[in-house]
Every structure is written in structure tokens, then in C-alpha cells.
């Protein structure tokens, strides 16, 4: 079926072509015929005009020729007695005639040619002789032997009577020169010569001779023969032509057009009478138009026509092709549109389970779009009332059955679907109750604004509904959580305000007391001390609250950077040691198994964690108690992540199990008789816990009331490997190190740490052994370069040992005291004993290296300073520097080098000070560039141009931070001698001065 359709469509498409092509063909044929006729007609007109001209010219030529011959005849002297060629005729030389013959009345023809006279008798009774003797001048055609070719051709002769004494005695015959005649009427058409015949027709001839003479004047080629016009015509045609020619002659018409059909095609010909008396000279010119030219012309025109026709057909074909393409594209789009629509329909079908078409007008329904009723409760089409009953029966809730059911009546639907509503939606539970359905009633058609046809689309929305219910539950939960958080916040606020109010009340109360006791100094002192203490407490509380709120609002971020464990311990020690000292507690810092000294972490926050724990330890440990902090390496992960455990333990009052449960809650402080006196914000541990969490670590506490507390903080920190290449030791020329400590573990630990740093060290466990070792080293010429001595040792203590060793080692070696205790009280004594420096326990390689370099540098600086002074010693500088501080720095640096200087605060002042100075006062000018009033370049130019004796000689050095090549060039161009890059150091200044001195 489809195939047939296509065929019809195909036919439809090609029908125009089938019709148009024959029409074009017919028109084309007509066009060709018309063209042909037009060409024939055109050529006919052409040939007619030419034939007429030929006839006219021939007539005039013949007339002239006749006149000439008549003149000759008049002059001719004939000797009638003597029958001969007239004597004076022999001298006639005519341009027209080849020769002139004479026919005597005695019927003898005399011809004179080439000086000879020929005479022969006249045979028969030729027309020219009869006419001539009757005094008629005329023309006749004669068969004559061609002088050139030898063949016989007909030529024209003119004849005229010759008179003597008024009597006709003979006839003169002028024979035309052939060339002459031909040249007169030679006509070519498009380079094709045409045939011109001259006929003498005797249409009334008694002997029924139709054609008396035929003269071929011009032949288009050799094959043209002199033959009768009628030779190739049928009898009827011949008769018709003859009649036409008679009519032409009788009516003396201009001529007759006639088409001959020849083998070369149609030859157009034209007959024209030569003007004159047709009875006497019935000469007829026949001129033909060459058939070949006609054929050629029609061919050209037809070719053009053919091209035109082909062009037409081609454009038609193109047009049809274009139509086909358009059709194809449209078709494709249609198919695509159709497919898109199918997609939409399919997608809809997936969304909706059932589509029911309901006609509201006649109350029927029908399941459509390949959907069918569920079960067999209703048919797939029928009365709407049945469908409605089924839908209502399927409702789970009675409420729906009543309320929603009422809405499904046809009048109700029509009413609901008013002009502004195109869709109704209802949701309801069905069947067992877990299934939710959505019924959409969509208006399809309206008549007068009232819905007449609708679509029922039913959709299972159980999943959606479930999600909706779920999110409702979640929302409720979130709301409850927010409420909880809010309550917690208000609790926090009320707690906080309570805690703030307590010290605040103290401040207010004591300041009121202060006012009353202004006259009692001891009271003033006591109250103000208490106000101060409360104020401090308040400040700490506020700081903690700020920290806490930062943590809670997530605003706190970790500031990760590299730090060394020794710095961390040092800082903790500097804060906690004084507190512990005040309570006469012992504070011990220890490290165990630390392989790395450098870690990446937030040092400040780690510090805060440890300080919080430690200050609690100090607070809750009675006077004289022990506090210990240790840092221990407990394992490692990939990527150089180390587990570091910080342990803080004390033998203080401890905490109850109940309190341990809430220790990290804000504002929790254990209340008992012991803690009553102790100040605190109650936020410290909360902050600590939060910070540890923030770092991804863990915190653990173990405590027993009356025994003590141990906090353990585990952090994972990334170690920074500083591959120690041992260069340090080479730089300071340190080959041997000796450790002296009574605790062998400490010695071993230090040696191991040094081993990591590419240094081998020896150790001794008391002063005497150390003395022996040193003595031996000196004896072996391998003396120790550095000796590290523990301060507190049984027997010989650190200072005493140092004194002993210094005696052996001399000044070359460095002696350090390593101690966990304050060394202030023995510092003087130790220095006297030859100790170079102190180091706090625990031992760190980095601290050790710093100490060594500090001591070594101190020594070399002292040496250097004395050597440096020489160059600048005694010089007097003028320094142009607009900034006071920079000026002071410059002045002091110059002074310690033994030089003096004056400071000018701008360029103008510098110029003034220089020009007013006695000659030779300043040795050199140091010129800042960027200055108010007058800049360095201007000031230099002014100085160079001044009349001061040293104006040209005094060295001027530019001081600028912009050490670009351009600036240096500009400085030199303005007359300066040197350029010193800022910030100016003595070394650079010295080098510049030396350079200038060298140039001199």
C-alpha cells in the first residue's frame, strides 16, 4: 500500500515534466519551421532585390551596348556594290565588344579577326537578320565556342541595321566580351556565387517553343547547366510557373519569387524581366540564392533554437530537482517532529499509568494510548457513570469517597473547568492505603467555553508522597535540633553571664569599699589588689569566651607552619616555669624517642592546649608538688606523619569520676572545699578539647582524687626531614664532642640524636672520667671541640667539672652546661669557671647548633669589628637622609666604625651644609635620592655646580633601594661617584669607600 502511494506521488511529481517536455518539443519544432521560413523569406527578398538590380543593370548595359553599335552602324561605310566587310569597321576598337560581324543583305556573314577577313554564307533565317533587315535593333543569344574552355556556351550578341543611302543594306552583330558582361553582374551571397540565368521566353511562340534561348551568365560552379526552367518541374508546376510568368509579363510586374526544391535544399529564385519591349526583347533574368547558404543559415538559427530549447529543458530539470530536494528536507523534518512527538508521548505514558478519554457531552469514556483498566472491574470503554463508580470505589478514605467523589460528576467537572482552568488535579489513597494516586483531568475540547471532552490521566505518586512525608519528618527533627541548639546557647549565655557577674560584682563591691576606705592605706592596697585580681579573671574569661565562640562558629582555622619541638617546649617552659616556681613545684620537661625536631602544625594552638592543661596542673597541685610534661614519639604513618603523644601528669588533688564525665563541658568546675579558692573560667578544658578535635587528635584524662591527674594528648603531625649533611660541623671545624651526665640514658639519648645529625659523640657518667677522657684526647692530639656537662651530678658538679676541663682544653674548645634548672644563680660562677654557655634540658640538636654558632659568631664578630674599623676610621660624612630614624641608624653605624657624620634632612639642607662647610671638613657625602624640597639628583648637581673648593672632588654616593641599572646610570649622570643599595650596611659602605679611594 505504501509502495503504491509512493508511485502516485512519484507520478505527481513527474507529471508536470511529462506535460511540459512535449509542449517544449512542439514549440521548438514550430520555432524551427518559423525560423526556416523566415530565412527563406529573408533570402527571397534579398535575391529579389538583387535580381531586379541585375535585370536593371543588364538592361542599361544592353541599351548602352546597342547605342554603341548603332553609332558604329551610322558611321559604317558600306560598299553596297562590293559585298565585303566595311573597310572603316576594321579600325573600330570597342571596349564592349570582342568583335563586330557584318551580315550583308546578300546573306553573307563577314567576320574580321586578327587582321583577317572571313566570309561565310548565312544559314537559315535567323531572327536577328530578319529583325535587322526590318530596321530593328535587338539582342540575341548565340551558341558559341568558348575561347577558354573550348566547350560550347551561349553568349549574348547585339544586332542593329546598317543603312546606306537610306536603305538597309545589312546587319551589324556586336559580340560581347564575356569577361565584360560577367564583371557587370557578378554577385556573391556570403561568398557563395549565385547562379544567374538569362532566359528569352517566347511564351506565345508559334512553334510552341517555350524557351528559345538560355544564357548562363554566372554559374555558381561548373556543374550548373544551361537548361530549361521547367526541366525539373512536374507538368502542373510547369504550367503554374508559365502562367505566373505570363501574368508577370502582361502586367509588367516587378518580378516573381519562386522556390525550387533541389537535392541541396530549397533554392530560392527570382524572376525579373529586363526592362524594355517584352515583345521584342522577352529577356528574363533568373537569379538563385545558394541553397548551401540557406541551409547554413537555417542550421545556425536552428542550433540557437536548440540551445534555447535545451536551456529550457535543463532549467526545468533543475527546478524539478530543487523541488525534490525541498520535499525531501521537509519530509525529514516531518519524520523528526513525529519522532519527537512519539518520545513525548512515550515519556508521558511512563509518567502516567492510565489515559482515559471522556466525552462529557454524551457521557462515555474510553481507555486510550494502549492503556487498559486494572483488573476487570470496568470495560475499556463504556458509560462514564460506570468509570466514576469504579474510581470512587477504589478510594481508600471515606472522606475522599464523599468529597472527591462528588467532584467527579459530569456537571461538576464542567463547572470546575471554567474558562480559566484547563486542568484539575486530585490526590488520594487507593486500595490497601499505601498507594497514592494522582488524577489529572485535562480539558481537550470546549464548546462555547464549556468543556466537552476531557482526558483523565492517572499517576502513581506513592514514592513522591513518601519522600514528601519523610522530608516533613526531617524538617521537624531539624527544627527540634535547632531548638535544642538555641536552648543550649541560652544556657551557655546565662552561665556565662553568671560567671561574668561574679568577678564583676567583686570589682564593683571592692571599688565601693575602696571609696569608703580612702584614708586607710592598707585597705586601699588590699582592695585594689583584689580589684586587679578580679579584673584579670574577667579578662581571662572574656578571652576564653571569645575563643570559644570562634571555635563554635567555625571561624577558627589552623595556621599550619613548620616549628621545632625545642621552641615549643621553650615557650611552654617560659610560661609555666614561673607559675610552678611560685608554688615551689618541680616542673620537668622530657622527650622520648624523638626522631624529628621539626614538624608542621599550628604551634600557637598546640601551645594553648598544653598551657591550658599545665596551668590547671599548677593550679590544682599543692605547693611543692611535681609536674611533668613529656613529648614522646609513639609511631609513624606514611608520608612522614608521626604520632606524637604529649603527657602532662601531676600529683595534685585529682578529680572525681563524676566530674571527669563533664570535664570538657563549658563552665564546669568541680565544686568542693579544695577548689573553692581557685579562680578559673571553666572554659579552658572545653577550648582544649575543641582545639584537639580541630587538629584531628585525641585527648584522654585519668585522675584520682588526692592522687593526681594525667592528661594524654595524641596528635598526628607531619615531620619535616631536614637531611643533615653534617656541613654544620665542618663549617665550625668541630670534630669531637663529649657528653658528661650522671644519667647514662640521657648520655645515650644525646649521642643518638647527634648521630642523626651526622656527628659522633662520646660520653662519660661523671666529672673524673670526663677529665681523664679530655686529658687523653689532648695527649692524642685530638682534643674535644665541644663538651656538654650536666649541671647537677653527684661528686663533681657541672661547674667544677667545667673548671677542670677548661684547664686541660685551653681556650679553643666550647664548654656548655646542660640543665633542667634555672641557671641564673650560678651564671657568674660558671662563666668564671670557663663555661661558654647554658642549654636547657631536654637536649635538642637544633638548640645545640644555635648555641654553638652564637658563641662562635660572637667571637668572630669581635674580631671582625676591630678589623673593619680601619677603613671608615676618622672619616667625616655628610648624610642627606629625610627620615630621622634612618638618619640615626646611619649615624650610629658610622660612629661604631669610628666615623663621624652630620645629617641633612633634605637635599636643600645638604647643599647648604656642604657649601657653608670649611674646605676639607667632609670626606664624603651619602645622598638619599627621594627627599622633599630637593631630591638627591638635584642636590648633587647643585653641589657640583657650587663654588665650594671641594665641589667637584668630594665623593658623593647615592643611597637607593631601586638598584635598577637606570637608577645607577641616572645617579652617575647627575654627578655621583657611586651607588649604595639600601638598606646600607657597613660592609657595603666600606666597600664603596675603598672603591672610591682606589679610584683616586
Amino acid at each position, binding site marked *: 500500500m505504501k509502495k503504491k502511494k509512493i508511485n502516485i506521488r512519484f507520478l505527481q511529481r513527474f507529471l508536470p515534466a511529462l506535460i511540459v517536455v512535449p509542449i517544449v518539443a512542439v514549440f521548438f519544432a514550430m520555432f524551427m519551421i518559423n525560423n526556416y521560413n523566415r530565412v527563406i523569406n529573408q533570402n527571397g527578398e534579398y535575391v529579389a532585390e538583387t535580381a531586379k538590380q541585375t535585370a536593371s543593370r543588364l538592361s542599361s548595359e544592353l541599351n548602352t551596348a546597342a547605342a554603341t553599335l548603332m553609332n558604329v552602324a551610322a558611321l559604317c561605310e558600306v560598299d553596297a556594290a562590293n559585298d565585303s566587310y566595311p573597310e572603316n569597321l576594321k579600325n573600330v576598337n570597342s571596349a564592349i565588344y570582342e568583335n563586330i560581324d557584318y551580315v550583308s543583305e546578300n546573306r553573307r556573314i563577314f567576320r574580321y579577326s586578327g587582321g583577317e577577313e572571313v566570309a561565310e554564307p548565312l544559314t537559315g533565317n535567323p531572327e536577328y537578320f530578319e529583325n535587322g533587315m526590318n530596321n530593328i535593333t535587338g539582342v540575341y543569344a548565340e551558341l558559341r565556342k568558348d575561347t577558354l574552355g573550348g566547350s560550347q556556351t551561349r553568349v549574348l550578341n547585339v544586332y542593329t541595321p546598317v543603312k546606306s543611302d537610306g536603305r538597309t543594306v545589312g546587319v551589324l552583330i556586336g559580340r560581347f566580351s564575356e569577361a565584360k558582361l560577367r564583371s557587370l553582374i557578378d554577385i556573391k551571397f556570403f561568398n557563395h556565387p549565385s547562379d544567374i540565368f538569362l532566359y528569352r521566353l517566347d511564351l506565345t511562340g508559334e512553334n510552341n517553343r517555350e524557351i528559345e534561348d538560355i544564357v548562363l551568365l554566372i554559374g555558381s560552379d561548373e556543374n550548373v547547366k544551361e537548361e530549361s526552367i521547367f526541366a525539373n518541374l512536374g507538368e502542373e508546376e510547369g504550367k503554374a510557373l508559365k502562367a505566373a510568368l505570363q501574368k508577370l509579363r502582361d502586367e509588367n510586374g516587378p518580378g516573381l519569387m519562386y522556390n525550387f526544391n533541389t537535392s541541396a535544399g530549397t533554392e530560392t529564385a527570382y524572376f525579373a524581366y529586363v526592362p524594355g519591349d517584352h515583345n521584342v526583347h522577352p529577356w528574363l533574368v533568373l537569379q538563385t540564392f545558394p541553397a548551401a547558404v540557406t541551409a547554413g543559415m537555417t542550421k545556425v538559427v536552428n542550433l540557437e533554437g536548440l540551445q534555447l530549447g535545451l536551456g529550457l529543458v535543463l532549467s526545468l530539470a533543475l527546478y524539478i530537482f530543487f523541488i525534490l530536494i525541498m520535499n525531501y528536507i521537509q519530509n525529514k523534518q516531518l519524520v523528526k517532529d513525529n519522532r519527537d512527538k512519539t518520545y513525548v508521548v512515550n515519556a508521558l505514558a511512563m509518567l502516567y499509568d492510565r489515559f482515559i478519554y471522556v466525552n462529557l457531552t454524551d457521557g462515555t469514556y474510553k481507555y486510550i494510548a494502549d492503556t487498559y483498566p486494572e483488573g476487570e472491574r470496568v470495560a475499556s470503554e463504556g458509560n462514564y457513570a460506570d468509570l466514576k463508580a469504579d474510581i470512587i470505589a477504589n478510594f481508600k478514605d471515606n472522606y475522599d469517597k464523599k468529597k472527591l467523589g462528588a467532584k467527579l460528576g459530569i456537571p461538576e467537572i464542567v463547572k470546575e473547568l471554567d474558562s480559566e482552568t484547563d486542568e484539575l488535579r486530585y490526590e488520594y489513597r487507593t486500595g490497601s492505603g499505601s498507594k497514592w494516586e494522582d488524577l489529572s483531568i485535562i480539558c481537550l475540547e470546549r464548546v462555547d467555553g464549556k468543556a466537552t471532552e476531557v482526558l483523565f490521566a492517572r499517576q502513581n505518586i506513592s514514592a513522591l508522597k513518601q519522600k514528601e512525608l519523610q522530608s516533613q519528618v526531617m524538617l521537624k527533627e531539624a527544627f527540634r535540633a535547632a531548638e535544642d541548639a538555641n536552648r543550649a546557647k541560652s544556657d551557655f549565655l546565662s552561665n556565662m553571664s553568671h560567671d561574668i557577674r561574679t568577678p564583676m560584682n567583686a570589682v564593683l563591691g571592692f571599688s565601693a569599699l575602696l571609696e569608703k576606705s580612702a584614708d586607710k592605706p592598707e585597705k586601699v592596697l588590699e582592695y585594689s589588689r583584689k580589684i586587679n585580681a578580679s579584673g584579670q579573671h574577667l579578662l581571662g574569661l572574656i578571652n576564653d569566651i571569645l575563643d570559644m565562640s570562634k571555635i563554635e562558629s567555625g571561624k577558627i582555622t589552623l595556621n599550619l607552619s613548620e616549628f621545632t619541638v625545642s621552641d615549643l617546649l621553650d615557650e611552654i617552659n617560659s610560661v609555666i616555669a614561673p607559675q610552678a616556681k611560685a608554688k615551689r613545684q618541680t616542673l620537668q620537661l622530657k622527650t622520648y624517642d624523638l626522631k624529628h625536631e621539626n614538624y608542621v602544625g599550628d604551634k600557637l594552638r598546640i601551645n594553648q592546649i598544653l598551657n591550658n592543661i599545665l596551668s590547671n596542673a599548677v593550679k590544682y597541685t599543692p605547693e611543692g608538688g611535681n609536674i611533668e610534661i613529656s613529648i614522646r614519639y609513639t609511631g609513624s604513618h606514611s608520608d612522614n606523619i608521626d604520632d606524637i603523644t604529649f603527657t602532662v601528669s601531676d600529683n595534685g588533688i585529682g578529680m572525681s569520676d563524676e566530674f571527669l564525665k563533664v570535664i570538657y563541658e563549658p563552665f564546669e568546675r568541680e565544686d568542693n572545699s579544695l577548689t573553692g579558692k581557685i579562680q578559673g573560667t571553666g572554659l579552658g578544658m572545653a577550648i582544649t578539647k575543641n582545639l584537639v578535635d580541630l587538629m584531628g587528635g585525641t585527648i584522654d584524662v585519668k585522675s584520682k582524687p588526692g592522687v593526681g591527674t594525667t592528661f594524654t594528648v595524641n596528635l598526628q603531625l607531619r615531620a619535616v626531614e631536614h637531611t643533615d649533611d653534617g656541613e654544620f660541623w665542618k663549617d665550625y671545624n668541630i670534630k669531637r664532642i663529649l657528653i658528661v651526665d650522671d644519667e647514662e640514658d640521657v648520655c645515650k639519648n644525646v649521642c643518638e640524636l647527634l648521630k642523626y645529625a651526622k656527628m659522633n659523640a662520646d660520653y662519660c657518667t661523671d666529672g673524673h672520667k670526663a677529665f681523664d677522657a679530655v686529658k687523653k684526647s689532648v695527649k692524642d692530639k685530638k682534643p674535644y671541640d665541644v663538651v656538654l656537662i650536666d649541671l647537677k651530678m653527684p661528686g663533681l658538679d657541672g661547674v667544677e667539672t667545667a673548671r677542670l676541663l677548661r684547664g686541660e682544653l685551653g681556650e679553643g674548645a666550647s664548654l656548655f652546661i646542660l640543665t633542667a634548672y634555672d641557671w641564673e644563680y650560678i651564671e657568674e660562677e660558671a662563666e668564671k669557671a670557663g663555661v661558654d654557655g647554658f642549654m636547657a634540658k631536654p637536649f635538642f640538636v637544633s638548640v645545640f647548633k644555635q648555641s654553638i654558632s652564637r658563641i662562635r659568631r660572637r667571637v668572630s664578630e669581635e674580631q671582625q669589628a676591630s678589623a673593619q674599623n680601619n677603613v671608615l676610621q676618622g672619616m667625616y660624612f655628610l648624610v642627606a637622609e629625610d627620615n630621622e630614624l634612618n638618619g640615626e641608624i646611619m649615624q650610629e653605624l658610622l660612629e661604631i666604625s669610628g666615623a663621624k657624620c652630620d645629617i641633612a634632612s633634605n637635599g636643600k639642607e645638604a647643599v647648604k651644609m656642604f657649601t657653608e662647610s670649611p674646605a676639607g671638613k667632609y670626606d664624603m657625602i651619602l645622598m638619599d635620592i627621594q627627599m622633599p624640597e630637593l631630591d638627591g639628583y638635584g642636590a648633587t648637581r647643585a653641589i657640583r655646580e657650587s663654588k665650594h673648593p671641594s665641589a667637584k672632588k668630594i665623593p658623593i654616593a647615592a643611597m637607593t633601594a631601586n638598584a635598577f641599572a637606570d637608577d645607577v646610570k641616572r645617579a652617575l649622570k647627575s654627578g655621583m661617584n657611586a651607588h649604595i643599595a*639600601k638598606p*646600607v650596611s657597613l660592609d657595603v659602605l666600606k666597600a664603596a669607600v675603598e672603591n672610591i679611594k682606589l679610584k683616586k
Partner: protein
Amino acid sequence: MTVREFYDVIGGNYADTLSRFLSEERMKRFALKFEADPSFSDLCAALEAKDADEAFRAAHTLKGVCQNLGFDCLYRPAFRVTEILRSGDLNVGADMDELRTCYGVVMSAVRALRESDS
């Protein structure tokens, strides 16, 4: 607070400054004097008055002082502000904010250094 700590806190170049000033005592003395240096307030005043020339001069001086004292953290924004002002552009925006913050840090550290002294 030690001088070394001071330079650590403000992000200064302790080593270079020590090599030029030769002693910590001198470094500390000059650092304390920075408190009285008017360049920063000059710069703020000039910016407020929209005086580009004066602002440039003040910024340039501040830059020079910071460089001399090895206050690298302050030197860097001062350098940028100077370069902006050099072209006459008063739109110092974020760099000036950074400069202000750094100045605040340096000043509080200077005060701490002074207090730790007394």
C-alpha cells in the same frame, strides 16, 4: 620578649638586620624608635587629604625605614603601596589594608618588646 622573638613575631629578617646592626641591643633600640617614626601617620594623612605626591613620599620613606630595620613583613606592602602611589594613583586598596594590618602587628610587637624590657 627577645629581639629574635620580636623579629619572629613580626616576620622580620633577624639575620640580615643583625649582620648590619651588629648587636641585638642596637636592633632593639632602633626597633623601639620605630614607634615614633611619623611616616605611617604621614601616609595616612596624605591619603586622607588625597595628596598623591605627599603620600608617595611618606610611603617611600616608610618603605626605606622598614627595609633598614629589616621589618620585611611591613616592607613588602609598603613597597607595593609606594609603587602604586609612584604613578599618582591614590587607589591603594587592599595593599594599604595589608600595610595597616602589618603596621598594627609591628606596633603591638614593639610595645610588647618595650614592656618586656621594663
